[in-house]
């Protein structure tokens, strides 16, 4: 059981980290609470399903096309829907909720509400420490790790990353230093949604695909981001692993754990917030005047 917990926690933690880091990034740079973030993850899974099962493209090609298409869609949505109401925080909030609903209903209308299964990308499994890990789950872990390294590289070793970090730190000053903050915000949206889309593509063969698959990870992702500290990459990564393991422990070790896993994860978040209102790695509140 211990090995099961270790492996499941790590795999789920990896997926959550992909989602949470993207969300955190976009919140840090553009102050957008993007409720539609996991809706893009759902769209990527559907896109992958269509390309793979309906048109019969290869795994790699359909994965890449799905990620690209969803990223492009996110930029279009940002320009059309979010950018015009950027000054009004409340309006941005419900614009993202409405977007998520639009995607959910479109998928419900096109594909119906039933669960869609995707054949596993890799068959077989490897035995490690006495647990058999399917290659598919190993793939999730590898892809998640690779994406995290890639994001780290982009953020800390490129000019775009420098601009993103500067904008997250202080939007006005970044603007005064000649950075095009609108362009930076758009690039951040693209990066963050691309991460969500990658997560959607790699988990699609493990989970089932349905139009409501965005709600559960949305809540978990929000819990992770708040737990780790809004806008903090390190916090999101560590928060994702904490929540991943907490969920795994609840499911394997507690009776009726499958029902309680969300509640326990959220309870942990509430407890952390009581002790540290800014999350584990968040910056302390400055009194905004």
């Amino acid at each position, binding site marked *: 059981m211990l090995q099961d917990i270790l492996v499941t926690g790590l795999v789920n933690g990896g997926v959550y980290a992909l989602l949470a880091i993207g969300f955190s990034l976009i919140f840090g740079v553009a102050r957008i609470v993007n409720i539609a973030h996991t809706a893009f993850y759902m769209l990527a899974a559907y896109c992958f399903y269509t390309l793979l099962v309906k048109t019969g493209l290869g795994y790699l090609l359909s994965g890449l096309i799905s990620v690209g298409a969803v990223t492009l869609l996110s930029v279009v949505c940002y320009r059309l829907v979010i950018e015009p109401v950027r000054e009004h925080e409340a*309006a941005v909030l419900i614009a993202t909720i409405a977007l998520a609903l639009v995607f959910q209903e479109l998928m419900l209308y096109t594909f119906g509400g039933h669960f869609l299964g995707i054949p596993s990308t890799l068959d077989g499994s490897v035995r490690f420490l006495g647990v058999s890990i399917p290659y598919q789950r190993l793939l999730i872990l590898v892809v998640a790790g690779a994406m995290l390294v890639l994001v780290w590289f982009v953020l800390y070793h490129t000019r775009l990353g420098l601009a993103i970090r500067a904008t997250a730190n202080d939007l006005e000053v970044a603007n005064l230093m000649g950075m095009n903050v609108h362009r930076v915000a758009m690039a951040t949206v693209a990066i963050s949604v691309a991460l969500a889309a990658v997560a959607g593509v790699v988990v699609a063969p493990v989970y089932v695909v349905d139009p409501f698959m965005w709600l559960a990870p949305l809540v978990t992702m929000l819990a992770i981001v708040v737990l780790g500290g809004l806008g903090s990459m390190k916090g999101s990564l560590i928060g994702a692993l904490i929540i991943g393991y907490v969920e795994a422990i609840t499911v394997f070790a507690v009776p009726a754990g499958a029902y309680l896993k969300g509640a326990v994860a959220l309870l942990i978040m509430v407890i952390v917030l009581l002790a540290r209102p800014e999350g584990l790695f968040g910056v302390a509140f400055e009194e905004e005047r």
Partner: protein
Amino acid sequence: MKYWLRRAGAELRNEVLVLPSRTLVLLWVVAVLALPLVYGDAYVLRILTMTCIFAIFAASWDLLAGYTGQVNFGHALFFGAGAYTSGLLSLKLGLSPWLTIWAGAAVALALGFLVGYLCLRLRGSYLSLATLAFPLIALGLLFAFPDFSGGELGISGLRRLMVTPVANYYVAAISMLAIVFGLWLLADSKFGIVLHAIRDDEVAARASGINTLQYKMTVFAIAGAAAGFAGALFAHYLRVAGPSTLEVALSFQVVIWGIFGGVATIYGPVAAVFILYPLTEWLGSIPGVGELRLLIFAVIVLLVLLFMPRGLAPWVRDKIETQCPRCKQRNGSWKIVCRLCGAALQTQVTRAQRLVGHQ
């Protein structure tokens, strides 16, 4: 008697009919109360009863989120708590629903204090995202103890408050009018002004000697109680208290109503419910369009937001009324001078003045 009638007539003429927004509110109240007398279709009454219940819910969210800026993403907690408390008490103990809806409101009030206390140190997006957790924790607990809560199916077979649809409608409509006007009065009183101050600058409010923590918790409790009352009405009207009263979808729905209508107004979210809820139900009843109703709903919300980012009610109010620059009282937009202080409302601005940036 005659004096009071004349007095009421004068009040009506001088205070209500002078402003188009107040006239609209009067017309709305009359319409809500008179509708069953004119048009008693059971289906329409059912939709309007639900609309009234959700209007209470949306108004209570607005008091919390609009006035103190504690944007609650988990308002369904109070709605669900009211529904489940009232349902369980009336079913297991056999109490009259007339008593248990108050118990539901009381439990929601206590939960409001609890959540308010837990959230005292949080603000902004942290508060929103943290509050999202509470109804889901409650939902997890309900699913973990299905013998007690009925699990996925909820508790069904509750008694209704009244027998006939018309009577049920009046219960919901009169509760709605009482609670909404109560919240509106509260928000317009000194209490409401303090809440505005807390939202705009909490440090300054505290420096002025306001116990902001107490106020924030009180508002949470009041909003919770109103939402719990709505939840209890809902449970007894539909005769079932199910997990749908605690779901994220309901929490998001109330956020959409609130922001669509315009926050910190009370009447805005109520107007939004009265427009959006019957609209979605009507769309759902059209064959062929029924499956698309949520899609159409979301698209309408998006489009309206692009044109009125501050919400529907403030936009309409700015179109039909202007504010006097001197005494800050509101006037109908056709007025040339202020009805109270006589200051000129529509000053002629010449092209030259506009060019040099006058006004």
